[in-house]
């Protein structure tokens, strides 16, 4: 398939199917992330990339044989590896027997939140999540190092790429508040239901990207100036790290949230909320920054 537009759409469909699959496996949080990131924002980013590079892939110079062999070998190894693996859903599988029972039984008591995914992600393995936030931040820095956010005639206020679309404008105007509100809901409701900083940041960024697409680059930049974005991303990482440093200086290990309040469980709540805000800010600003960087580049003739 040489039509990259088609490839991107297929990717998006694939992500939606995967999200459905995760849903089916009762991994609601993962499904949510896959739908928001994989199917949603990634598609937009890849399409804005295509706008810069062109829709059709050139015929590759090398023969497809070597990649095919590599892919086939990897696939075989994957199948081989699963032959002896415990059956899906087997309650006696090691994955359900070793560390999981404590997460399930003690999690609500020690960390004090009903959504145990959030408890594991933000508290038990909060340092990994800190690392993941830094990964997002690094990705943003990488894109900004390479592309930068450029300004040009098309980024002046009042210009749109798609022209004056009355119907779209009205619909989007109605949608954006709902999207932003939903983003906030997902951000602060992560303790109880599916969601958290990652998904919320993506949803929030989607609202701004939508505004950008319909009302024009320049108008969006008036709302959130490009200069702010890398700094906001850095701020989010620093909030997360700052919570860790606070517990460190309070004489507890890095990221031990029980240092944040007199009651350890209360401290856990506060800590998880703060780090999720950090995650949300970083994810939002970095995704918007990447979008600006791609959309702001003048298309080459």
């Amino acid at each position, binding site marked *: 398939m040489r039509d990259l537009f088609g490839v991107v759409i297929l990717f998006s469909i694939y992500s939606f199917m995967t999200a459905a699959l995760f849903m089916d496996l009762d991994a609601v949080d993962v499904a949510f992330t896959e739908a928001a990131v994989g199917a949603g924002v990634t598609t937009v980013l890849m399409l804005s990339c295509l706008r810069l590079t062109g829709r059709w892939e050139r015929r590759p110079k090398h023969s497809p044989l070597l990649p095919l062999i590599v892919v086939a070998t990897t696939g075989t*190894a*994957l199948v*081989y*590896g*699963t*032959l*002896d*693996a*415990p059956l899906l859903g087997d309650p006696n*599988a*090691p*994955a*359900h*027997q*070793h*560390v*999981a029972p*404590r*997460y399930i039984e003690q999690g609500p008591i020690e960390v004090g939140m009903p959504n145990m995914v959030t408890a594991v992600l933000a*508290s*038990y*393995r*909060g*340092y*990994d999540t800190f*690392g*993941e936030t*830094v*990964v997002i*931040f*690094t*990705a943003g*820095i*990488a894109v*900004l*190092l*390479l592309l*930068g956010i450029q300004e040009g005639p098309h980024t002046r206020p009042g210009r749109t790429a798609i022209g004056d679309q009355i119907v779209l404008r009205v619909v989007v105007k109605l949608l954006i508040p709902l999207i932003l509100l939903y983003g906030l809901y997902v951000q602060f409701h992560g303790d109880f239901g599916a969601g958290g900083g990652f998904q919320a940041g993506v949803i929030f960024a989607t609202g701004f990207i939508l505004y950008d697409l319909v009302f024009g680059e320049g108008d969006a930049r008036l709302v959130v100036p490009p200069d702010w974005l*890398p*700094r906001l*991303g*850095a*701020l989010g*990482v*620093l909030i997360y*790290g700052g919570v*860790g*440093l606070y*517990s*460190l200086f309070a*004489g*507890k*290990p*890095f*990221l*031990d*949230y*029980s240092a944040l309040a007199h009651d350890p469980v209360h401290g856990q709540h506060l800590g998880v909320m703060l780090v999720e805000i950090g995650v949300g800010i970083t994810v939002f600003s970095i995704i918007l920054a990447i979008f600006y960087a791609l959309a702001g580049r003048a298309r080459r003739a």
Partner: protein
Amino acid sequence: MTLIDHLPVLAVIVPLLAAPLCVLIDRARPAWLIALAASWLSFGAAILLLLQVTQSGTISYHLGGWPPPWGIEYRIDLLSAYVLLIVTAIAAVVMVFAWHSVESEIPSERIARFYAALLLAFAGLAGITTTGDAFNVFVFLEISSLASYAIISMGRDRRALNAAFQYLMMGTIGATFILIGIGFLYMMTGTLNMQDLAALLPEVSDTRTVRAGFAFLTVGIGLKLALFPLHLWLPNAYAYAPSTVTAFLAATATKVAVYALLRVLLDVFGVEFSLQAMPLNLILMVLGLVGIVSASLVAVFQDDIKRMLAYSSVAQIGYMVLGIGLANTTGVTAAILHVFNHALMKGALFLALGAIAYRLGTATLRDFAGLGRRMPWTMAAIVIGGLSLIGVPPTAGFISKWYLVLGTLEQGLWPVTLLVLFGSLLALIYVWKLVEAAYFKPAPANAPAVAEAPLSMLIPVWLLVGANVYFGIHTDISVGVASQAATQLMGAGG
């Protein structure tokens, strides 16, 4: 807990949190100062950690206050403290060198973000060496890899973009393989903590899932390691990256990959499974040898000196892998020792090349003509670094070659010994090409007037050169810790 108890995590999060600070400030000079301070602080923490580990044994730090295997553990034993010391030392020295070099190679409005990315790459590598959690390794690998792709692509030559993209592809495949491997292990044991994995794996080691996980992990790390024949990304990446980046990555990134290989093979899976039940010792030995000979041969015919040294790096990785493949304590000692010594010599050589590139703009063999008179201090550094690369006493390079040769003889593999010596001979040839051009060829008549490199570059270069000589004579620190760490590793698996 006092601040001393937090050293394991401080060594990593100081550079990690310094990176967003650089972005927040977004000015070149303060960003450099932050990067400099962060890397020296981290270096200080690493020194204290090594002292602490040698005196009172392995340190375990529970992140978030959750005990392992539920939470993430930072676990510093001799090997991690040793590799962490190398990584932080190189970072600290490179940061001193960086100011002039980066100023001349990177557009000024991007310098602050460049330092942020450099710090992230550094923090990622430091995180891999300190953590005791398999998934945490993956997270920090992602941080360091993403940041490395970005800083490699900042080279002045447009081909840097292609090189970075090639590295991105190979590196991403490597990282994915590592993740799949960890996933398989989790499936069979239900844990991500390395010590816990090591305890639980023997029970289930005779399953296809564990074997597949083992294969995925080894190949994935092999890609990151630039193990022959998975090294194709390395020469371009090193040749076109900015000088500072080449020096930093060449001296640290592949070393950390060697560390990861040692950790996974000998600690998590154990010697018995990795090197005896699986035929990996033979595979590693053969790949190491082919890597040594072929990459050294290619290096002899390179005109671009950065590229020549990059191929030489592939060969040096061959020596380390060969040491692991020998599967005896002396061999593993040689591998760990060479991680240390190679970081010193390649750090010194690439920094010296960076100084030449700063003055001349390029560093090809033609540029070297007559350079011995025009940049005497820089050239002298290259000569000593080159001697260490060949393995001439009394340099550090000699010590690691010595242990490697001992290891091969212990196994009675004298043809391997000969090949190792042949590799050194090839190194002699390509180093000689540099010396010949610099000292025995007159400078071309139209050569631009060149001054010696500024002091802020010469001092870091000579610090590393001095270390090359120092650790060639006083071996009790480098060899002592390396052999203790090797004994620990080999003993852990039986």
